[in-house]
């Protein structure tokens, strides 16, 4: 339960500070796309640890299975075939929540405590407070949350916040057979990524780099990409993601402005009444009509 925790950085639809006396190390998951073999052990581990079983779907003709994230599939491998320098490259990206430092879902959420950002950087949905409006989907720059058709609650990767809370790595990282999914402090992960990038560059991937987009304040799920200059190659990973200006306007500036404006109209009306008095029907007109009636 979020409120029993002492290390909450932010809480949705809450204007006062969250309980945050305890500071914890910022964590991160590093997904090294260059060493991923697309085995989907991470998908299997995710459903096993979180105890969710998606419906058995159909093969759509490609390796992506299931074809998209759902309320019961919090991570999916996305397979892209691209040609680079006359050679086929099979780019396999494990998609799921990026755990943004500046989460668009949390910013958009109207339900107090339905979305929690812990001091360690994990952005977690608390479905018992979720009202099912889908504003998190509207706010997310990565198109991650999904509303369940069964209970109308929003679901997504929790970065195994329950495991992390007791010092364990997320289930996907634990299951990965090639070490493509690493987990640790954000600093450690950056150091690890730097070594991988040096290695990739020495193998001819001059544009290899770390995907930790600054537009959302950095993320707590990062990628090592062979083509960091073109993240969109990886099944549409956004190039420079940020919270949409429309969402910032809607849930930022507009909220206090409109509230004050509405209060001003209400108070303005009251003060108009007490200062100018009511607009009464004139006594003269009433008397005049009475006289006419008397005739």
């Amino acid at each position, binding site marked *: 339960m979020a409120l029993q925790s002492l290390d909450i950085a932010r809480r949705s*639809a*809450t*204007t006062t500070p969250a309980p945050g006396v305890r500071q914890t190390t910022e964590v991160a998951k590093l997904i090294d796309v260059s060493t991923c073999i697309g085995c989907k052990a991470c998908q299997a581990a995710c459903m096993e640890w979180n105890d969710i079983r998606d419906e058995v779907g159909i093969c759509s003709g490609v390796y992506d299975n299931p074809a998209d994230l759902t309320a019961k599939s919090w991570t999916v491998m996305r397979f892209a075939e691209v040609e680079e320098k006359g050679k086929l490259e099979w780019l396999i990206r494990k998609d799921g929540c990026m755990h943004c430092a500046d989460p668009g879902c949390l910013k958009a959420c*109207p*339900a*107090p405590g339905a979305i929690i950002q812990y001091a360690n950087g994990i952005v977690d949905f608390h479905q018992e*407070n979720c*009202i*099912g*409006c*889908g*504003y998190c*989907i*509207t706010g997310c720059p990565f*198109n991650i949350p999904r*509303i369940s058709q069964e209970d*109308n609650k929003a679901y997504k990767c929790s970065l195994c916040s329950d495991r992390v809370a007791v010092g364990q790595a997320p289930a996907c990282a634990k299951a990965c057979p090639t070490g493509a999914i690493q987990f640790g402090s954000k600093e450690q992960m950056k150091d690890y990524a730097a070594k991988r990038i040096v290695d990739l560059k020495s193998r001819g991937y001059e544009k290899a780099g770390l995907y930790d987009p600054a537009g959302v304040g950095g993320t707590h799920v990062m990628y090592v990409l062979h083509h960091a200059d073109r993240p969109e190659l990886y099944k549409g990973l956004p190039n420079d993601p940020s919270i*949409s200006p*429309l*969402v910032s*306007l*809607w849930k930022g500036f*507009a*909220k*206090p402005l*409109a*509230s004050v*404006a*509405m209060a001003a*109209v*209400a108070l303005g*009306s009251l003060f*108009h*009444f007490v200062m*100018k*008095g*009511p*607009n*009464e*029907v*004139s006594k003269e*007109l*009433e008397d*005049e*009509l009475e006289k006419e*009636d008397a005739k």
Partner: protein
Amino acid sequence: MMRNPKDLTRYDAQERANHWLVGICFILLALSGLAFFHPAFFPLTQLFGGGVWARILHPFIGVVMTLAFVVMFFRFKSLNVMTPADKEWLSRVGEMIDGDDHNMPEQGKYNGGQKMMFWIMSLCVLLLFVSGIFLWRAYFSLPVDVVRLGAVVHAAVAAFMIGMTMVHIYAALWVRGTVRAMVYGTVTRAWAKQHHRAWYRQVTGKS
């Protein structure tokens, strides 16, 4: 209060029922909608049985209001056509607000301000209905940029319309003898002669 048989009928029963159906829906929509807009208003969801129920009910109430408003729109549309006298009235609305309405130009059933309110409210309902459809995820699934635009339009227009409604309600309370027109349908002859003289002459045949 005894009613004078010589009072003038301003709204018949259907018109009154239609207006109050819109009014009740609007109040429910404003209360539930504000709850999703700013955390300070979130406790208002308790009036609807909690956040989930507020989220479920809000769009359905919106559809009822839109239908009732469309009927009301066609009822009153022809009475709200702007005339030069209305523009003259609007240009001098400052005097009215200042509390001195004696020199205001003669008005028909509705004055320029009321007509403005009619058209503004109509536009607001249209925008709220369309943008509200964009946000209704239970039944509609639109591209995320459309939903984002819808969210901004819905919130901005709703806040504006709540302000306009407060002006509408205040105007009715401020001008004494007005609320009864929408409650039991009649106004006094003196009220009509003072505020809507052209309409008074039209319905009484007097000068």
